[in-house]
């Protein structure tokens, strides 16, 4: 464990101490809350930085991978891979439910 010194707004410190007390007030409770909150934030920030990636797969084998579809297309060309022999997939799964807005048009 490493000791870190930083400043927080008083309101945040009050909320932090209240939460630690409600969690049982045991030694180390504040550190646990701060660690948990920071880890969640950093995971999210790193995920956002990574961004979506795209891969060409033959079965389960990844034959090419890139950060954009254009770069993936270029990679397939460079490697002489026929697009018909691969599946193009994204690191982000296709979400199952899509809401379409309701647009009314005159008859």
């Amino acid at each position, binding site marked *: 464990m490493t000791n870190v010194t930083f400043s927080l707004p008083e309101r945040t410190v009050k909320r932090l101490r209240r939460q630690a007390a409600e969690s049982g007030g045991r030694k180390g409770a504040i550190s646990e809350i701060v660690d948990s909150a920071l880890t969640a934030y950093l995971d999210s920030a790193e995920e956002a930085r990574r961004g979506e990636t795209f891969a060409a797969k033959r079965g389960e084998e990844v034959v090419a991978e890139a950060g954009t*579809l254009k770069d993936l297309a270029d990679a397939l060309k460079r490697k002489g891979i026929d697009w018909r022999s691969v599946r193009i997939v994204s690191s982000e799964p296709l979400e199952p439910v899509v809401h379409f807005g309701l647009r009314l048009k005159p008859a």
Partner: protein
Amino acid sequence: MSSFSGLTPILRLALRNDILGLTHPLVGTTVGIVDTGFDGFVAVPEPVFDELGMDRLSGATSPGKTADGKPLELRACLGTVYLPAIARALDGQVLTGAGVDEILVGTKLLRRLRATLDYCTGAFRVEPCR
């Protein structure tokens, strides 16, 4: 360029299938209707989907529903929306299905942009997130 069509914000865009090297339209841009009630990336009419060769790439299907709860069966394929006003190409799932008769831009595409709607001045601007 972004603007309004009546009261509806629109984006001038081009659609690309970089894997097959196909674009829609062949030259210039077309209109995408900004639909904040649509939580996908972009939806296109079936002829556009097929023109882009997306029916030939390995795609997927996705169940969806309209705001009034009507179920939809959508075909999906990865593709690219190019926004010349900000010189940005955005990749995502291009959807199509029966009843999709316009190019719709959804919130999954918008989340990569700062979109400013100003009905007072009739301005709709988009810029990349910083």
